[in-house]
Protein backbone atom coordinates (compact mmCIF):
# COMPACT_ATOMS: atom_id res chain seq x y z
CA UNK A 1 0.00 0.00 0.00
CA UNK A 2 1.24 3.44 -0.87
CA UNK A 3 0.63 4.93 2.53
CA UNK A 4 2.88 2.39 4.19
CA UNK A 5 5.73 3.37 1.90
CA UNK A 6 4.98 6.99 2.49
CA UNK A 7 5.30 6.63 6.21
CA UNK A 8 8.95 5.73 5.75
CA UNK A 9 9.63 8.94 3.90
CA UNK A 10 11.61 11.11 6.33
CA UNK A 11 10.09 14.29 4.90
CA UNK A 12 6.67 13.15 6.02
CA UNK A 13 7.79 11.90 9.40
CA UNK A 14 5.74 13.25 12.30
CA UNK A 15 7.13 16.46 13.71
CA UNK A 16 8.89 16.19 17.06
CA UNK A 17 6.19 17.17 19.48
CA UNK A 18 6.16 17.25 23.22
CA UNK A 19 3.76 14.85 24.83
CA UNK A 20 0.97 16.89 26.32
CA UNK A 21 1.24 15.92 29.97
CA UNK A 22 0.63 19.36 31.46
CA UNK A 23 0.42 20.19 34.37
CA UNK A 24 2.91 17.52 35.50
CA UNK A 25 5.56 19.05 33.22
CA UNK A 26 7.92 21.38 35.04
CA UNK A 27 7.84 24.83 33.49
CA UNK A 28 11.42 25.63 32.42
CA UNK A 29 10.67 29.36 32.84
CA UNK A 30 9.19 29.11 36.34
CA UNK A 31 12.30 30.24 38.21
CA UNK A 32 12.95 33.20 35.92
CA UNK A 33 9.31 34.26 36.10
CA UNK A 34 9.27 34.26 39.88
CA UNK A 35 12.58 36.17 40.01
CA UNK A 36 11.12 38.75 37.61
CA UNK A 37 7.90 39.01 39.58
CA UNK A 38 10.00 39.61 42.69
CA UNK A 39 11.57 42.62 40.96
CA UNK A 40 14.64 41.23 39.13
CA UNK A 41 14.66 43.05 35.77
CA UNK A 42 17.50 40.94 34.39
CA UNK A 43 15.29 37.85 34.69
CA UNK A 44 12.81 39.48 32.32
CA UNK A 45 15.61 40.22 29.87
CA UNK A 46 16.54 36.52 29.89
CA UNK A 47 12.88 35.63 29.27
CA UNK A 48 12.81 38.07 26.33
CA UNK A 49 15.93 36.50 24.80
CA UNK A 50 14.43 33.07 25.27
CA UNK A 51 11.04 33.84 23.69
CA UNK A 52 11.77 36.49 21.05
CA UNK A 53 12.44 33.89 18.34
CA UNK A 54 9.17 31.89 18.67
CA UNK A 55 7.20 35.14 19.01
CA UNK A 56 8.80 36.53 15.84
CA UNK A 57 8.21 33.24 13.98
CA UNK A 58 4.55 33.22 14.94
CA UNK A 59 4.14 36.90 14.03
CA UNK A 60 5.81 36.35 10.67
CA UNK A 61 3.61 33.37 9.81
CA UNK A 62 0.53 35.29 10.91
CA UNK A 63 1.34 38.59 9.18
CA UNK A 64 3.46 37.45 6.24
CA UNK A 65 5.76 40.45 6.42
CA UNK A 66 9.06 40.78 8.26
CA UNK A 67 8.73 44.46 9.09
CA UNK A 68 5.24 44.06 10.55
CA UNK A 69 6.33 40.90 12.33
CA UNK A 70 9.26 42.66 13.98
CA UNK A 71 7.00 45.46 15.09
CA UNK A 72 4.41 43.07 16.50
CA UNK A 73 7.14 41.06 18.24
CA UNK A 74 8.26 44.18 20.09
CA UNK A 75 4.68 45.09 20.95
CA UNK A 76 3.96 41.56 22.18
CA UNK A 77 7.05 41.52 24.40
CA UNK A 78 6.14 44.94 25.84
CA UNK A 79 2.63 43.68 26.45
CA UNK A 80 4.15 40.66 28.18
CA UNK A 81 6.00 43.06 30.47
CA UNK A 82 2.80 44.98 31.11
CA UNK A 83 0.62 41.99 31.94
CA UNK A 84 3.09 39.25 32.81
CA UNK A 85 3.32 40.15 36.48
CA UNK A 86 -0.23 38.95 36.88
CA UNK A 87 0.76 35.56 35.46
CA UNK A 88 0.02 33.03 38.19
CA UNK A 89 1.32 29.84 36.62
CA UNK A 90 -2.05 28.34 35.66
CA UNK A 91 -0.39 27.34 32.38
CA UNK A 92 3.17 27.20 31.22
CA UNK A 93 4.75 30.61 30.76
CA UNK A 94 5.47 29.77 27.10
CA UNK A 95 1.74 29.15 26.57
CA UNK A 96 1.05 32.57 28.08
CA UNK A 97 3.67 34.11 25.77
CA UNK A 98 2.08 32.49 22.73
CA UNK A 99 -1.33 33.79 23.79
CA UNK A 100 -0.02 37.34 24.12
CA UNK A 101 1.79 37.02 20.76
CA UNK A 102 -1.25 35.56 19.00
CA UNK A 103 -3.44 38.40 20.29
CA UNK A 104 -0.90 41.01 19.21
CA UNK A 105 -0.70 39.48 15.73
CA UNK A 106 -4.48 39.19 15.38
CA UNK A 107 -4.96 42.78 16.52
CA UNK A 108 -2.38 44.03 14.05
CA UNK A 109 -3.96 41.96 11.33
CA UNK A 110 -7.31 43.61 11.97
CA UNK A 111 -5.91 47.11 11.79
CA UNK A 112 -3.77 46.41 8.76
CA UNK A 113 -5.49 47.37 5.55
CA UNK A 114 -5.80 44.39 3.27
CA UNK A 115 -4.66 46.37 0.26
CA UNK A 116 -1.53 47.50 2.08
CA UNK A 117 -0.68 43.95 3.04
CA UNK A 118 -1.21 42.80 -0.51
CA UNK A 119 1.01 45.54 -1.89
CA UNK A 120 3.81 44.62 0.44
CA UNK A 121 3.47 40.94 -0.29
CA UNK A 122 3.76 41.65 -4.00
CA UNK A 123 6.76 43.90 -3.49
CA UNK A 124 8.47 41.25 -1.42
CA UNK A 125 7.79 38.54 -3.94
CA UNK A 126 9.28 40.71 -6.66
CA UNK A 127 12.45 41.25 -4.69
CA UNK A 128 12.50 37.51 -4.17
CA UNK A 129 12.93 37.31 -0.41
CA UNK A 130 9.83 36.54 1.60
CA UNK A 131 11.87 35.11 4.38
CA UNK A 132 15.38 34.11 3.72
CA UNK A 133 16.31 31.07 5.73
CA UNK A 134 19.17 31.57 8.16
CA UNK A 135 20.65 28.32 6.83
CA UNK A 136 19.07 26.37 3.96
CA UNK A 137 18.60 22.78 4.99
CA UNK A 138 19.60 21.29 1.65
CA UNK A 139 21.49 23.63 -0.70
CA UNK A 140 20.92 21.18 -3.59
CA UNK A 141 17.19 21.77 -3.91
CA UNK A 142 17.22 25.25 -2.41
CA UNK A 143 16.16 26.93 -5.66
CA UNK A 144 13.27 24.56 -6.34
CA UNK A 145 12.33 24.64 -2.68
CA UNK A 146 12.32 28.44 -2.51
CA UNK A 147 9.46 28.69 -4.99
CA UNK A 148 7.38 26.17 -3.08
CA UNK A 149 8.18 27.89 0.20
CA UNK A 150 7.13 31.26 -1.16
CA UNK A 151 3.86 29.75 -2.33
CA UNK A 152 3.24 27.99 1.02
CA UNK A 153 3.93 31.25 2.84
CA UNK A 154 1.51 33.07 0.57
CA UNK A 155 -1.17 30.36 0.86
CA UNK A 156 -0.97 30.62 4.65
CA UNK A 157 -1.78 34.32 4.39
CA UNK A 158 -4.91 33.52 2.42
CA UNK A 159 -6.40 31.41 5.24
CA UNK A 160 -8.86 32.93 7.70
CA UNK A 161 -6.86 34.00 10.81
CA UNK A 162 -8.37 31.43 13.20
CA UNK A 163 -7.51 28.53 10.88
CA UNK A 164 -4.06 29.96 10.16
CA UNK A 165 -3.24 30.34 13.85
CA UNK A 166 -4.24 26.75 14.61
CA UNK A 167 -2.21 25.22 11.78
CA UNK A 168 0.83 27.43 12.46
CA UNK A 169 0.87 26.47 16.14
CA UNK A 170 0.46 22.77 15.35
CA UNK A 171 2.45 22.14 12.20
CA UNK A 172 5.12 24.83 12.43
CA UNK A 173 5.50 25.44 16.15
CA UNK A 174 4.92 21.78 17.00
CA UNK A 175 2.64 22.45 19.96
CA UNK A 176 0.36 19.70 21.30
CA UNK A 177 -3.43 20.08 20.93
CA UNK A 178 -3.97 20.74 24.65
CA UNK A 179 -1.56 23.67 24.72
CA UNK A 180 -3.04 25.16 21.55
CA UNK A 181 -6.46 24.90 23.17
CA UNK A 182 -5.13 26.93 26.11
CA UNK A 183 -3.55 29.54 23.83
CA UNK A 184 -6.71 29.97 21.75
CA UNK A 185 -9.07 29.39 24.68
CA UNK A 186 -11.21 26.95 22.71
CA UNK A 187 -11.88 23.21 23.26
CA UNK A 188 -9.41 20.66 21.88
CA UNK A 189 -12.03 19.36 19.45
CA UNK A 190 -12.25 22.83 17.90
CA UNK A 191 -8.45 22.95 17.60
CA UNK A 192 -8.40 19.62 15.76
CA UNK A 193 -11.16 20.63 13.40
CA UNK A 194 -9.47 23.98 12.63
CA UNK A 195 -6.18 22.23 11.87
CA UNK A 196 -7.92 19.82 9.52
CA UNK A 197 -9.84 22.58 7.76
CA UNK A 198 -6.69 24.65 7.39
CA UNK A 199 -4.72 21.75 5.93
CA UNK A 200 -7.52 21.02 3.47
CA UNK A 201 -7.68 24.65 2.39
CA UNK A 202 -3.91 24.69 1.91
CA UNK A 203 -4.09 21.43 -0.04
CA UNK A 204 -6.48 23.10 -2.48
CA UNK A 205 -4.38 26.25 -2.78
CA UNK A 206 -1.11 24.40 -3.22
CA UNK A 207 -2.53 21.90 -5.67
CA UNK A 208 0.40 21.74 -8.13
CA UNK A 209 3.09 21.51 -5.44
CA UNK A 210 1.07 18.99 -3.47
CA UNK A 211 0.58 16.73 -6.49
CA UNK A 212 4.27 16.92 -7.28
CA UNK A 213 5.17 16.23 -3.69
CA UNK A 214 2.82 13.29 -3.29
CA UNK A 215 3.95 11.77 -6.60
CA UNK A 216 7.57 12.15 -5.53
CA UNK A 217 6.64 10.43 -2.32
CA UNK A 218 4.80 7.64 -4.15
CA UNK A 219 7.58 6.82 -6.59
Amino acid at each position, binding site marked *: *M*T*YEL*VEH*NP*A*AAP*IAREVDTYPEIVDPDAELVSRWQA*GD*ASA*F*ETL*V*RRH*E*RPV*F*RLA*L*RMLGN*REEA*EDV*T*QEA*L*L*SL*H*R*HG*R*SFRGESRFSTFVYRVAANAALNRRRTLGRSRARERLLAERQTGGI*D*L*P*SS*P*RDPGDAAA*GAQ*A*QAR*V*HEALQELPPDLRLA*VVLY*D*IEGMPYGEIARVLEVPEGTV*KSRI*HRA*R*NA*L*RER*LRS*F*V*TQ*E*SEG*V*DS
Partner: protein
Amino acid sequence: MKHSQIRAQLSEYLERDLSGEGRARIDAHLEDCLDCDRELNELRATVSLLRRLPEPALPPGIGTAVMARIALGEGREARVHSLLRRTAEPRFAALLAAGLAGVFFLFQSGDIGLATQTSRAVAPGTRALVAAMPIAAEGGGSEDAWLNARDSGLGSQAGVTSGFTPAAAYQQYRSQTRRQEAERRAQIQEYARQLRGAGHPNSASLASHFEARPNVVLADWQPR
Protein backbone atom coordinates in the same frame (compact mmCIF):
# COMPACT_ATOMS: atom_id res chain seq x y z
CA MET B 1 -18.91 4.61 6.39
CA LYS B 2 -19.33 7.61 4.11
CA HIS B 3 -16.41 9.19 2.27
CA SER B 4 -17.05 12.53 4.00
CA GLN B 5 -16.83 10.90 7.44
CA ILE B 6 -13.56 9.24 6.50
CA ARG B 7 -12.14 12.44 5.05
CA ALA B 8 -13.02 14.44 8.15
CA GLN B 9 -10.75 12.16 10.17
CA LEU B 10 -7.76 12.01 7.84
CA SER B 11 -5.71 14.61 9.75
CA GLU B 12 -6.15 12.69 12.97
CA TYR B 13 -5.34 9.49 11.09
CA LEU B 14 -2.10 11.06 9.86
CA GLU B 15 -1.18 12.09 13.40
CA ARG B 16 -2.02 8.60 14.70
CA ASP B 17 -4.54 10.17 17.06
CA LEU B 18 -7.30 7.62 16.40
CA SER B 19 -8.13 4.61 18.50
CA GLY B 20 -7.20 1.17 17.13
CA GLU B 21 -10.75 0.58 16.03
CA GLY B 22 -11.11 3.95 14.30
CA ARG B 23 -7.80 3.50 12.56
CA ALA B 24 -8.70 -0.01 11.37
CA ARG B 25 -11.96 1.33 9.93
CA ILE B 26 -10.11 3.92 7.89
CA ASP B 27 -7.43 1.40 6.82
CA ALA B 28 -10.18 -0.86 5.51
CA HIS B 29 -11.83 2.00 3.62
CA LEU B 30 -8.55 3.14 2.06
CA GLU B 31 -7.91 -0.36 0.73
CA ASP B 32 -10.88 0.05 -1.59
CA CYS B 33 -11.21 3.81 -2.13
CA LEU B 34 -8.62 5.38 -4.42
CA ASP B 35 -10.08 8.89 -4.04
CA CYS B 36 -9.79 8.92 -0.26
CA ASP B 37 -6.34 7.35 -0.48
CA ARG B 38 -5.23 10.10 -2.86
CA GLU B 39 -6.64 12.74 -0.55
CA LEU B 40 -4.70 11.26 2.34
CA ASN B 41 -1.47 11.43 0.33
CA GLU B 42 -2.15 15.01 -0.69
CA LEU B 43 -2.83 15.96 2.90
CA ARG B 44 0.41 14.31 3.94
CA ALA B 45 2.27 16.20 1.21
CA THR B 46 0.69 19.48 2.39
CA VAL B 47 1.82 18.86 5.95
CA SER B 48 5.28 17.98 4.70
CA LEU B 49 5.49 21.26 2.75
CA LEU B 50 4.40 23.21 5.83
CA ARG B 51 6.89 21.52 8.10
CA ARG B 52 9.74 22.16 5.70
CA LEU B 53 9.27 25.93 5.86
CA PRO B 54 12.66 27.26 6.88
CA GLU B 55 13.34 28.87 10.22
CA PRO B 56 13.24 32.62 9.49
CA ALA B 57 16.28 34.66 10.38
CA LEU B 58 15.60 36.69 13.53
CA PRO B 59 16.12 40.43 12.96
CA PRO B 60 18.91 41.65 15.23
CA GLY B 61 18.20 43.91 18.14
CA ILE B 62 14.56 43.03 18.92
CA GLY B 63 15.24 42.04 22.52
CA THR B 64 17.55 44.99 23.10
CA ALA B 65 15.03 47.44 21.65
CA VAL B 66 12.31 45.99 23.88
CA MET B 67 14.48 46.27 27.00
CA ALA B 68 15.43 49.83 26.06
CA ARG B 69 11.79 50.79 25.56
CA ILE B 70 10.97 49.31 28.97
CA ALA B 71 13.83 51.25 30.56
CA LEU B 72 12.37 54.39 28.98
CA GLY B 73 9.07 53.77 30.70
CA GLU B 74 7.06 51.85 28.10
CA GLY B 75 5.56 48.52 29.02
CA ARG B 76 4.43 49.68 32.45
CA GLU B 77 1.20 48.53 33.96
CA ALA B 78 -1.56 51.10 33.81
CA ARG B 79 -1.35 53.20 36.97
CA VAL B 80 -4.86 52.46 38.23
CA HIS B 81 -4.49 48.77 37.57
CA SER B 82 -1.18 48.76 39.38
CA LEU B 83 -2.68 50.52 42.40
CA LEU B 84 -5.63 48.15 42.48
CA ARG B 85 -3.30 45.19 42.34
CA ARG B 86 -1.12 46.61 45.09
CA THR B 87 -4.01 47.12 47.46
CA ALA B 88 -4.28 43.33 47.47
CA GLU B 89 -0.74 43.02 48.85
CA PRO B 90 -0.55 42.41 52.61
CA ARG B 91 1.70 45.42 53.26
CA PHE B 92 -0.70 47.78 51.53
CA ALA B 93 -3.71 46.23 53.18
CA ALA B 94 -1.97 46.73 56.55
CA LEU B 95 -1.16 50.36 55.70
CA LEU B 96 -4.72 51.00 54.66
CA ALA B 97 -6.05 49.41 57.84
CA ALA B 98 -3.59 51.44 59.93
CA GLY B 99 -4.65 54.61 58.16
CA LEU B 100 -8.31 53.95 58.79
CA ALA B 101 -7.63 53.08 62.42
CA GLY B 102 -5.64 56.30 62.81
CA VAL B 103 -8.39 58.42 61.34
CA PHE B 104 -10.88 56.73 63.60
CA PHE B 105 -8.63 57.40 66.61
CA LEU B 106 -8.28 61.06 65.66
CA PHE B 107 -12.01 61.45 65.56
CA GLN B 108 -12.32 59.67 68.86
CA SER B 109 -9.75 61.82 70.65
CA GLY B 110 -11.12 64.98 69.13
CA ASP B 111 -7.78 66.41 67.95
CA ILE B 112 -8.55 66.16 64.25
CA GLY B 113 -7.78 69.88 63.86
CA LEU B 114 -4.14 69.43 64.88
CA ALA B 115 -3.49 66.49 62.62
CA THR B 116 -4.77 68.21 59.54
CA GLN B 117 -2.36 71.13 59.89
CA THR B 118 1.16 69.89 59.12
CA SER B 119 2.77 66.55 59.52
CA ARG B 120 5.27 68.05 61.97
CA ALA B 121 2.45 68.66 64.43
CA VAL B 122 2.66 65.41 66.32
CA ALA B 123 -0.75 64.83 67.76
CA PRO B 124 -1.48 61.84 69.98
CA GLY B 125 -3.59 60.41 67.20
CA THR B 126 -0.73 60.67 64.73
CA ARG B 127 1.54 58.81 67.08
CA ALA B 128 -0.94 55.97 67.26
CA LEU B 129 -1.22 55.89 63.49
CA VAL B 130 2.54 55.86 63.01
CA ALA B 131 3.04 53.15 65.61
CA ALA B 132 0.50 50.99 63.84
CA MET B 133 2.33 51.23 60.52
CA PRO B 134 4.15 48.08 59.44
CA ILE B 135 7.90 48.02 59.10
CA ALA B 136 8.95 47.63 55.47
CA ALA B 137 10.37 44.29 54.47
CA GLU B 138 12.83 44.10 51.59
CA GLY B 139 13.82 46.98 49.33
CA GLY B 140 12.00 47.23 46.03
CA GLY B 141 12.02 49.29 42.86
CA SER B 142 11.92 53.07 42.84
CA GLU B 143 8.18 52.97 43.48
CA ASP B 144 8.93 51.53 46.91
CA ALA B 145 11.79 53.86 47.71
CA TRP B 146 9.71 56.48 49.49
CA LEU B 147 7.76 53.95 51.50
CA ASN B 148 10.93 52.09 52.45
CA ALA B 149 12.63 55.27 53.50
CA ARG B 150 9.67 56.27 55.61
CA ASP B 151 9.18 52.81 57.04
CA SER B 152 12.82 52.27 57.90
CA GLY B 153 12.77 55.60 59.74
CA LEU B 154 9.84 54.26 61.70
CA GLY B 155 11.24 50.81 62.24
CA SER B 156 14.25 51.99 64.17
CA GLN B 157 12.04 54.08 66.39
CA ALA B 158 9.49 51.36 67.08
CA GLY B 159 6.58 53.62 67.78
CA VAL B 160 8.53 56.66 69.00
CA THR B 161 7.87 59.43 66.50
CA SER B 162 10.45 61.99 67.60
CA GLY B 163 13.23 60.67 65.28
CA PHE B 164 11.05 60.60 62.19
CA THR B 165 10.92 63.73 60.10
CA PRO B 166 9.40 63.87 56.64
CA ALA B 167 12.41 65.94 55.53
CA ALA B 168 14.92 63.23 56.47
CA ALA B 169 12.80 60.54 54.88
CA TYR B 170 12.47 62.63 51.75
CA GLN B 171 16.28 63.06 51.59
CA GLN B 172 16.74 59.33 51.91
CA TYR B 173 14.13 58.79 49.20
CA ARG B 174 15.84 61.28 46.90
CA SER B 175 19.29 59.75 47.25
CA GLN B 176 17.97 56.25 46.71
CA THR B 177 15.96 57.38 43.67
CA ARG B 178 18.89 59.32 42.21
CA ARG B 179 21.08 56.25 42.45
CA GLN B 180 18.40 54.17 40.71
CA GLU B 181 17.98 56.81 38.01
CA ALA B 182 21.72 56.85 37.36
CA GLU B 183 21.76 53.07 37.07
CA ARG B 184 18.81 53.10 34.71
CA ARG B 185 20.37 55.80 32.53
CA ALA B 186 23.58 53.78 32.32
CA GLN B 187 21.46 50.80 31.28
CA ILE B 188 19.78 52.85 28.54
CA GLN B 189 23.17 53.97 27.23
CA GLU B 190 24.26 50.35 27.19
CA TYR B 191 21.17 49.30 25.21
CA ALA B 192 21.75 52.15 22.79
CA ARG B 193 25.35 50.99 22.33
CA GLN B 194 24.18 47.42 21.67
CA LEU B 195 21.59 48.61 19.16
CA ARG B 196 24.28 50.49 17.25
CA GLY B 197 26.37 47.35 17.18
CA ALA B 198 23.50 45.11 16.08
CA GLY B 199 23.70 46.23 12.46
CA HIS B 200 19.93 46.32 11.99
CA PRO B 201 18.72 48.95 9.49
CA ASN B 202 16.61 50.60 12.18
CA SER B 203 19.09 50.25 14.99
CA ALA B 204 20.92 53.52 14.35
CA SER B 205 17.73 55.59 14.50
CA LEU B 206 16.51 53.63 17.52
CA ALA B 207 19.79 54.13 19.30
CA SER B 208 19.83 57.85 18.61
CA HIS B 209 16.23 58.02 19.84
CA PHE B 210 17.34 56.60 23.18
CA GLU B 211 20.53 58.61 23.37
CA ALA B 212 18.64 61.82 22.74
CA ARG B 213 16.78 61.28 25.99
CA PRO B 214 19.47 61.11 28.66
CA ASN B 215 17.41 63.09 31.14
CA VAL B 216 14.30 61.01 31.11
CA VAL B 217 12.53 61.44 34.41
CA LEU B 218 12.32 57.93 35.68
CA ALA B 219 10.96 58.63 39.10
CA ASP B 220 8.23 61.11 38.33
CA TRP B 221 6.30 60.31 41.43
CA GLN B 222 7.01 62.80 44.20
CA PRO B 223 5.99 62.41 47.82
CA ARG B 224 3.66 65.04 49.14
